C-alpha cells in the first residue's frame, strides 16, 4: 500500500513538474529538410487577387517553424491582371505571384511572363511530380512557369437534407435532373437550381456550358484547333452546350429573376444557398471554397444547419463531367529579392502534404496526384476516369473560354438565340 502511494505521488509530482515545461513544437513535415541557413532573416511577399488567403498564411506559419526569421506575407493587388506587370517591375516587387495559363503567349502579359522563373529547373529541387500531370502547363520550350496550387472544377452545391426531406434522390443523369427539378417545382420550389447570373464571369450559364463544350471539343481534335483559333465555324460545337443551358431555362429548372437577386458570384451565392431552400446551387469549386467559413456567418445555416456536398451536374444521359483545370497557380519572380529563400519556400510548398493541407484549409480541390478530396467533394470521386477532362492537356485557350462563357450568358438571358450565338463565335468579348 505504502509503495503504491509513493509511486502515485511520484508520478503525480513528475506530471506536475513536466506540466510546467513547454510543448515541443511538432515537426511540420518530416520530409522537408531546410537547405538554407535557418537563421536567415528576410521578407517574402506573395501577391495575388484573393482578398484573403488564409490557407497560404497557414503555410507561412508552417514554413516559419523551419525558418522563424523569414517574414512571409500575402498582399492583394488592386486591378491584379492589369497591375501585375507594373508591380513586378516596381520597388515593391513580390517574390511569388498568382499566374494563369492564359498569360502564356499573351503579348499583354509578356512582361509578366518574362519575370517568371522556370520551375522545372532541377537545381530548384521542386517536386512537380506530386501534381497531376494534366494540370501542369509546359510552354514551347517545355518549361514550367506556373505551379498549380488549387484545381478548379464545375458543379453544383446540393442540399442533401432537402432531397431527403422531399424524398428525392440526387440526380445522376440529365433525365433524372429534369425529373427532380419538376418534383421540386411541384413541391413549391420556384427555382430548384440557382446560380450567379448578373455577369458572364463565374455565371451559372458558363458553369453549365463550359464542361459540355470542353467535352465536345475533346472528342474532336480538329474542332479544338478551330475553336482555339476562334474560327467562326467552330461555333457549331457550342450548340449542344447552349441547348442544354436553354433547356434548363425553358424547363423552369432555374428562375432567372431569383438568380438575379444574388449580387455577387461568391459570398452571396453561398449565403443564398445556406438559406436552406435551394436544392441545387450551380457554381465552381472556387465558390465552394468559401462555404466552410460562411457557415457561421449565415444566421439561417447556424439556426438550421444541413448536410451539403458539391456534385458534378448531370448534363448528359451518361452522367457528369469532371473538368479538372488549375484554379490558382504560383509563379516565382526571378528578379525578386531573396530568390534563394523564395525557391526554398516553393520547395516546401510544392509537396503533396502541403498542397493537400492548403486545399483542405481553402476547401478547394487539391492539385496533387492522390486527389485527396474534402468530404464535400466526395461525389467527384465517383466520376469515372474517362469522364475527367483536363483543359490544360487539351490545350484550351483563354479566348475560347471567353466565347462559350459570353455566348451561354447571353443565350440564357434571352439576349440572343442559339443560332446567333453559334454564328458569333470568335467575336464575343
Amino acid at each position: 500500500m505504502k509503495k503504491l502511494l509513493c509511486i502515485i505521488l511520484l508520478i503525480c509530482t513528475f506530471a506536475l513538474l513536466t506540466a510546467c515545461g513547454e510543448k515541443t513544437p511538432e515537426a511540420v513535415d518530416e520530409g522537408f529538410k531546410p537547405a538554407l541557413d535557418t537563421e536567415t532573416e528576410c521578407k517574402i511577399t506573395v501577391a495575388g487577387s484573393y482578398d484573403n488567403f488564409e490557407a497560404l498564411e497557414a503555410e507561412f506559419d508552417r514554413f516559419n517553424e523551419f525558418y522563424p526569421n523569414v517574414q512571409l506575407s500575402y498582399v492583394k493587388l488592386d486591378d491584379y491582371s492589369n497591375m501585375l506587370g507594373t508591380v513586378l517591375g516596381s520597388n515593391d516587387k513580390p517574390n511569388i505571384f498568382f499566374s494563369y495559363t492564359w498569360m502564356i503567349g499573351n503579348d499583354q502579359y509578356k512582361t509578366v511572363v518574362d519575370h517568371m522563373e522556370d520551375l522545372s529547373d532541377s537545381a530548384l529541387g521542386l517536386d512537380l511530380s506530386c501534381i497531376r500531370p494534366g494540370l501542369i502547363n509546359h510552354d514551347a520550350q517545355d518549361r514550367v512557369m506556373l505551379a498549380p496550387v488549387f484545381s478548379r472544377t464545375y458543379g453544383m452545391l446540393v442540399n442533401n437534407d432537402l432531397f431527403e426531406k422531399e424524398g428525392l434522390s440526387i440526380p445522376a443523369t440529365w433525365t433524372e435532373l429534369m425529373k427532380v427539378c419538376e418534383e421540386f417545382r411541384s413541391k413549391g420550389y420556384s427555382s430548384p437550381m440557382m446560380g450567379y447570373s448578373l455577369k458572364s464571369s463565374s455565371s451559372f450559364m458558363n458553369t453549365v456550358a463550359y464542361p459540355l463544350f470542353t467535352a465536345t471539343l475533346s472528342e474532336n481534335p480538329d474542332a479544338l484547333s478551330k475553336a482555339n483559333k476562334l474560327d467562326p465555324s467552330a461555333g457549331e460545337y457550342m450548340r449542344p452546350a447552349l441547348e442544354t443551358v436553354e433547356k434548363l431555362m425553358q424547363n423552369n429548372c432555374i428562375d432567372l429573376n431569383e438568380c438575379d437577386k444574388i449580387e455577387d458570384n461568391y459570398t452571396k451565392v453561398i449565403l443564398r444557398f445556406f438559406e436552406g431552400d435551394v436544392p441545387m446551387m450551380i457554381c465552381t469549386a472556387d465558390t465552394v471554397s468559401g462555404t466552410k467559413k460562411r457557415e457561421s456567418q449565415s444566421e439561417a445555416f447556424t439556426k438550421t444547419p444541413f448536410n451539403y456536398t458539391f456534385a458534378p451536374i448531370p448534363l448528359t444521359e451518361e452522367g457528369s463531367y469532371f473538368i479538372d483545370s488549375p484554379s490558382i497557380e504560383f509563379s516565382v519572380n526571378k528578379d525578386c529579392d531573396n530568390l534563394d529563400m523564395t525557391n526554398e519556400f516553393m520547395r516546401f510548398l510544392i509537396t503533396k502534404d502541403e498542397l493537400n493541407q492548403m486545399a483542405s484549409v481553402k476547401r478547394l480541390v487539391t492539385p496533387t496526384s492522390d486527389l485527396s478530396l474534402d468530404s464535400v467533394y466526395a461525389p467527384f470521386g465517383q466520376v469515372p476516369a474517362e469522364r475527367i477532362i483536363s483543359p490544360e492537356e487539351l490545350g484550351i485557350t483563354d479566348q475560347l473560354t471567353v466565347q462559350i462563357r459570353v455566348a451561354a450568358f447571353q443565350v440564357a438571358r434571352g439576349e440572343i438565340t442559339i443560332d446567333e450565338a453559334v454564328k458569333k463565335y470568335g467575336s464575343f468579348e
Partner: protein
Amino acid sequence: MKKTWIIIVNVVIIVALLTFVFFYSHFENTNTTQRQIEHFENTTITMEHVTENYLEGEQRICDVWARYINSRDMTIEEAISFIRISHVLPNASAHIVYRDTLSGLSTRARSDDPDEYSVSYARTGLLNDLNWIDGIGESINISRAFTNPVNGEQSIAFCNSVSVHDPETNELKDAVLLRVLPLSELEEKWVFPHEEFENAELSMIDEDGDYIIKGHSFKNSSFFEFYRSYNAADPAFTNELFEKITSLTGSLFMVNSRGEECILAYTPVEASGGWTLLNLMPMKDLNVSTQNWLLIGYVSAGLLILLVFDTAVMLYYNKKLQAAAAEAAAANKAKTDFLSTMSHDIRTPMNAIIGLTTIAEKNIDDTESVGENLKKISMASNHLLTLINDILDISKVESGKLNLSPLTFSIVETVENLVNLSQPMIKEKNIDFNFRIGKMEREYLYADQLRLNQIYINILSNAIKYTEPGGRVSVDMREEESDKPGCIRLIYTVSDTGMGMTPEFMATMYQPFSRQTDSRVNSIQGTGLGLAITKQMVDLMDGTIDCQSELGKGTTFTVTLDLPVADRQREDMVLDPMDVLIVDDDEILLQTAVDTLESLGLNADSSRSGIEAIGMIKHRHEVGRDYGIVILDWKMPDLDGVETIRRIRTEVGENIPILLISAYDWSEIEDVAKDAGANGFVSKPLFRSKLYDKINALLGTEAKSVEPENDYSDLQGLNILIAEDNDINWEIISAMLGMFGITTERAENGRICVDKMANAKQGDYTLIFMDIQMPEMNGLDATRNIRKLEDPWASSIPIIAMTADAFSENVTECLQAGMNGHIAKPIDIKLVIKEIRRIKEERS
C-alpha cells in the same frame, strides 16, 4: 492512527499547499497579467496619439496643397507642377484625379514609361466611393492600402477634394488630390516600440474592419475576417465584437493564425473617421514572470522530499517504537517471570529458615541437631541476603542512581577477600582452583572497592557456581600500563570448565532478569541479575567486560578496568639477599613467584615437584649452602606439600624455614602441617607485599609465624557503645560481641548516644557502633554532634556505622559525617571483629 492515514493526511496537506501556491501564483499571475495588459493598452493609446500626430502632419501637408490649389484656379498640370516643386520626400508622390473619369496626373512618371505621367484609378476601386473624403482640415482622409497605379507599389494616400480649372470648359472641375506614400516606408516608421513589447504589431482598420495599414501577424484583408478565421464566433458575437472594437478602447484575447493566444488592444483613432488602431501580441510575450511555475515546481519537490523524509522518519520511529514495545513487552514478561522466580527464590530460603527454626525449637536439647539446623539456617539467610542485595542493586541500576564512591583500598586485601569468599564453594564442589597474579606493582588503588568486589565476586562466583564438581576455575589478574594518566590497567580473567553458554543467551545475558534456561541451571541458585549488575558497574567504571564461551566446554570472562593509583603506597620492599626455593607444579605461578621473589632482592630457585625440591635442598645442604627459605605449594601431584615438608625435616633437618602455600583455607591442614614442620602459611595468590610480610615475619619471629586464628584475647575488656533502636538487633550484636568477651552498652537513639558520650569519661568506650536510621536523632546527626564535643577523646572516638543502608553512597555519607567505617546489616561477625581489630590497631 494507521500509517496509511498519516500518509493520506500528509498527501492532503501537500495537495492543499500546492493548491494554495497554485492559486496564489495564479492570482499573482493574473494581477501581473492585468497590469501588463493595462500597460499594453496604455501603450497602444500612446501609439494612437503618435499615429494621430503623424497622420495629422501628413494630412496637413495635403491640406496645404489643396487649399493652395483651390485658391489659385489652377489647371491640373499647374497643380501637379506646384506639388512637384513643393514635394520633398523622395519616395512619395501626388496624384490629382478627376472625379468623373477617375483619371488624372501624377507628380512622378510611370515606372515603365519615363515620359508618362497619366494615372487612372478606374480599375482599382479605391475612388469609386468618395464619401470618406471630408472637407479640407476637417479630418484625416487616408485611404486603405492600395496598389499605386503609377509604380505598382503598395501605398496609402492622404486625400482632399480639390477643384482644378478645366481649360476645355473653362470651369472648375472636381478632382481628388492624393498624397501617396509607399506602405513599405510607412511600415518602417510606424512600428511599435520593441523595448516595450517585443513582437507586438500594429494595424489600422477602417470602419468596415478592412485594413488600412496591416501588420505582419494580421491576416486576411479584414480584421474581422481574420478574427473569425481562427476564433469561434457566432454572428451575434461578431456584431458585438465589431461594435466594441470600432468604438471603444480596450483589449481582448484572441487566437492568431499560429494558434497562439494573443492580446489585442484597440483604440479609435480620434482624428479619423471611424478608424481603429489595433495592437496584437502573443500572450507569451507579455512580461509575466513564469517563475511562479518554478516556485510551484520547487514547492512540489520540497514537499515531496518532506513527505519522503517524514515517511522515512515515521517508519524509522515506528520501527524503533515497535522494537521498544517488543522490548518493553519482553521486559514486562521478564519482570513477571522474575517476580515469579523471586517469589519462588525468596520463599525457598525463607521456608528453610522458618522450617529449620521450628525443628531447632523442637529439638532444643539436641545440641548437635540444633547446630546443624543453625548452620543450614545461616546458609539460607546468606542466600536470601544475596538475593535482596541483587534486587536492590538492579533497582538502582535501572533508576540510574548507581553512583561510585571511590576510596583508597588495597588490591591485595580485595583479592584475599575474593579468595576467602570463594573458598567454601570451591571446597564443597572440589573444584581445581587457581588464582594467578601477574605483575602487580601497585597495591593501593583509588576506586569504589565495594563495586569492584562485587564485579570480581559476581564473575568468580558464577564460574564456580556453573562449574561441575571436579572441574577447574582459574583466575588471572595482572597489571598493565594504562592510557589514562595516573591509572593502571587491571585485567581480571576468570576461566572455567563449566557448562558454557549458547550464543543466543550470550546476546542477552547482560539484560536484567535473564537467566539461561537449562535444566542444569534450574538446580543452581541465582537471581539472574548478577551479570546485569556487573555489566552496569563495569560500564560505570569506564571498563570493558568480554566473554568467550562454548556450550559444554566453559566460559572465560575478562574484565578490564583503568583504575587510578592511590597516593599511598608501600615503602620499598627489599629483603636481605638470600637463596630461596619456590616449589609448585603450576609453571605460570612458579615463574611469577620467582619474578616476585627476585624483585624483593632474593635469589630464587624453582622446582616443579616435591621430590625434585627435596633433591635440591639436600644438595644445597650437603654443599653448605642451605636455602634461606623454602616455599612449598600444598597441593602437588606425586608428593604434596605436607609430605614434602615432612621428608625435608627428616632428611635435611629442622633449620630451613618453610612456608606452605595454599589456595585454600589451610585451617584443616594447619595441625598436620605444623606437625610436619611447616613454619608458616601463605595463601595464593602470592602478592609481593604478602611475600615480603610473610618472609619478614618468618625470619624475624619464626615461632609467631603461625597466627592463632581463634585467639580473641586481644578483644577482652573492650567496651563498645551501640546506638541501636531495634531491640532484636541490639540483642544480636550484643550477644555476638559478648561471645568474644566484649562488653556493650546500648543507646536507644542518636540523642541518647550523644548524651552518653558527652557524659562519658575517657576510656569508657573503645568505639561506637552506630545505627543510621533511628528515632529522635539519626546516626549521621549523632556522629556530627559527637564530633563537635569538647572532650577530645569523646569527639575522636571511632564510630563505625552498622546499618542496613548498604549502598556505596550510604558508606560515603557515613564517612563524610565523620564515621570511621561501615558495616552492613545483616552483620557478618567476622567482619565486625576484623573492623574492631583494625580500629584498635589504628588507635594504638
